[in-house]
């Protein structure tokens, strides 16, 4: 991908099929590379103007938790980047209520606005997608 791929000029010339992409994030933000890799894939894929949704469930809900301090584990705190997603026109963020409840988290503990879905509603959301990518 080069810079013009994401450019305005491209949007006017090429309009392909828009598919529904769902990225499912299930792992804690640090300790494995999954959370960061998922976020990077989402940011890169944003250039293709698809219908993108993000789901956070299981320990993945911690990716959006406020107050991540990573200095002592010597890795970058990338949680502020989730707040940049809006600028990339990625505005559909879902968290699973059961996962939040099990960890004592509420929407107020998260750094970005999200839609809370039950496990059953989550299943419907996944069913409605063209592509589901799990991280």
């Amino acid at each position, binding site marked *: 991908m*080069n*810079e013009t791929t994401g450019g*305005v*000029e491209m949007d006017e010339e090429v309009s392909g099929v828009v598919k529904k992409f769902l990225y499912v994030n299930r792992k804690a933000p640090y300790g494995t590379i999954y959370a960061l890799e998922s976020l990077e894939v989402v*940011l*890169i894929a944003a*250039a293709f103007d698809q219908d993108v949704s993000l789901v956070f469930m299981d320990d993945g809900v911690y990716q959006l938790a406020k107050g991540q301090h990573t200095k002592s584990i010597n890795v970058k*705190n990338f949680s502020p980047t989730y707040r940049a997603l809006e*600028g*990339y026109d990625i505005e559909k963020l879902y968290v699973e209520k059961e996962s939040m409840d099990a960890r004592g988290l509420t929407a107020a503990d998260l750094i970005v606005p999200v839609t809370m879905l039950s496990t059953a509603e989550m299943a419907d959301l996944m069913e409605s997608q063209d592509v589901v990518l799990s991280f």
Partner: protein
Amino acid sequence: MPIVVNGQSFETDEEGYLTNRNDWNEDLAKEMAKVDNCALSDSHWEVINFLREYYDEYQIAPAVRVLTKAIGKKLGPDKGNSKYLYELFPYGPAKQACKYAGLPKPTGCV
């Protein structure tokens, strides 16, 4: 390949992006621009400073589409368009301006 400014050497990656963002200063930006035969005007600085603020807030260098939109929001539509930004930074506004701003290359740029 390190870049030398005021007798001090700074580490960069193979494409000239600064390795340690905290090394950055204005002279360093000017020197990087000079290598590309580019003299930095106030208009260039406006974009460079915008990128540094964006990085501080979001911890990423924005894609060019996002940069263009965000510049438009902050500095007005006459600056938030591809033509204006490409005239300032012919190697690609995100790519080139990020380099001078001491940021990593935007995610997704080759």
